[in-house]
């Protein structure tokens, strides 16, 4: 029934190189006649979004429909464009985090960490061990909150109302914990170049223990409610297939890439924070359909719970931050640092000219690249499949539009 089992541990399999194909030209949208005998018919072009319940914010997709079948799709972005990359050029390094929280507003700690790592590698700052572990801990907590939001909204996209409200229970519990640690529920501003803002407050271990005690049981419930449900399985099996070749060619990362069977996880590929010191597996899918993306993320949730336990148990003593001057002036140069955010590889590319502000900062947003595939992935499916595929990609418009 629920064959999560076929999501195996990492096997190191990577699709062979050379297996690339030139994709079809993304067709511009047009009104095409699809004459059935003598009856003149037209394709229907509908606007999905920017205010549509399933576009998760303000995404606008033009769908060309033949009946209910999607012939072509084109995403139109920018409704949430705030020019973060430009604003960053006018801020000192420790002030950037506030903007990055608002780029990926569901998992701000990941982008903050990526920035901190990029600055540290530019300026050559050594981060204390304790800070690294705290970073990993809060990032895994943040990963659960983000995946919980995805799980709930994915259920909503497929018409199941119950999981959304149940996931909010877990999400709220963890947001409260994050608020106790960082001072804010979503706009953390906690991970700074050199370490983290403050040490873990007392009682966090107990709070996380309380959460973890029920977490696995609730995960089983979600698996019953969605993964074990025949209707759900019918809706996602074989739907929105994005195979390994397409996924790599479009630069997809994260669970969407791993669902296609490509073993790439930044936490394993280039271990950062404390990920080199903890044990975890990277769940992989096989086909790259919505079911695989669902199953991979569900396994990631379970692993995040186990990681939190390991990180709590192994938390070292020491300083929570290195001494970093406020007016940090890293030497001129470039650096790139990436973290495995809940959506994939979130990279910060910094260009410094030696002043106290970055000359250029590029946010390599994972959902931006994951979304680009929809023109291809939605075509041929039904409207309902389009909704399911979009939901399974787990996009956050804040980081796509920046």
């Amino acid at each position: 029934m629920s064959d999560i089992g076929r999501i195996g541990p990492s096997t190191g399999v990577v699709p062979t190189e050379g297996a690339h194909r030139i994709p079809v030209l993304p067709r511009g949208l047009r009104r095409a006649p699809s004459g059935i005998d003598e009856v003149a018919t037209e394709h229907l072009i509908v606007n999905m979004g920017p205010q549509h319940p399933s576009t998760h914010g303000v995404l606008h997709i033009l769908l060309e429909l033949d009946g209910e079948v999607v012939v072509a799709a084109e995403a139109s972005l920018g409704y949430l464009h705030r020019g973060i990359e430009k604003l960053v050029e006018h801020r000192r390094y420790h002030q950037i985090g506030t903007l990055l929280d608002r780029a990926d507003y569901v998992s701000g700690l990941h982008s903050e960490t990526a920035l901190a790592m990029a600055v540290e590698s530019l300026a050559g700052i050594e981060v204390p061990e304790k800070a690294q572990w705290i970073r990993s801990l809060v990032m895994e907590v943040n990963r659960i909150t983000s995946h919980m939001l995805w799980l709930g909204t994915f259920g909503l996209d497929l018409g199941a109302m119950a999981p959304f409200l149940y996931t909010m229970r877990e999400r709220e519990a963890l947001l409260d914990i994050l608020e106790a640690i960082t001072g804010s529920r979503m706009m953390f501003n906690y991970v700074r170049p050199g370490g983290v803002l403050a040490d873990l407050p007392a009682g966090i271990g107990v709070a996380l223990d309380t959460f973890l005690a029920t977490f696995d049981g609730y995960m089983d419930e979600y698996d019953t409610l969605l993964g074990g449900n025949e209707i759900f399985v019918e809706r996602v099996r074989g739907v929105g297939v994005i195979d390994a070749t397409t996924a790599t060619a479009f630069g997809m990362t994260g669970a969407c890439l791993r669902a296609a069977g490509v073993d790439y996880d930044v936490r394993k590929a280039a271990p950062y924070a404390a990920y080199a010191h903890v044990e975890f597996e990277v769940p992989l899918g096989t086909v790259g359909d919505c079911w695989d993306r669902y199953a991979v993320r569900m396994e990631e949730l379970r692993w995040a719970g186990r990681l939190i336990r390991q990180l709590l148990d192994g938390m070292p003593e020491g300083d929570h931050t290195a001494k970093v001057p406020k007016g940090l002036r890293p030497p001129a140069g470039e650096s790139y640092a990436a973290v495995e955010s809940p959506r994939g590889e979130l990279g910060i590319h910094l260009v410094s000219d030696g002043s106290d502000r970055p000359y250029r900062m590029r946010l390599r947003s994972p959902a931006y690249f994951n979304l680009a595939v929809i023109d291809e992935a939605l075509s041929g499916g039904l409207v309902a499949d389009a909704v399911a595929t979009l939901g399974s990609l787990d996009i956050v418009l804040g980081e796509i539009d920046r």
Partner: protein
Amino acid sequence: MRPDVDATTEILTAAGVPLKEASSDTLGVVCRIEAFRLEAALAALRAVGYQTLVDLFGTDTGEAVELTYHLRRLGDLAEVYLKAIVAYDCEAPSVWRVYPAALYPEREAAELLGVSFAGHPNPKRLLTTEEVEGHLLRKDVLLRTPEEVAL
């Protein structure tokens, strides 16, 4: 894992792409080439297994726009950066046939930095609307307060 500068140079030279400069710094292997050779260079690198375009973006250097292509080989996690200079309002080749991942970032670079990509199948604006004047990531576009914008 950092690939050899020499090996990368060799691959590119064999593909008929002379390098202006190749170095290995804090970023990794950085190869600078002529903009019009971008497609050939990327195709050559793709042929040796760099199947992912991690990122593509432009930087306004103050004199021209510098395009950065960040490539990765998933097998051994080797990474290469290709850089090419394009003069303001001039043209670079679109590389979407080699890496479809370039479709969005090329549109973004075109609208925010004012370069164009020849052969892009859908050269529309991506993030801003038609009314936005200027190329926002250029250094000569200054930040304005809401009051200034309203005037």
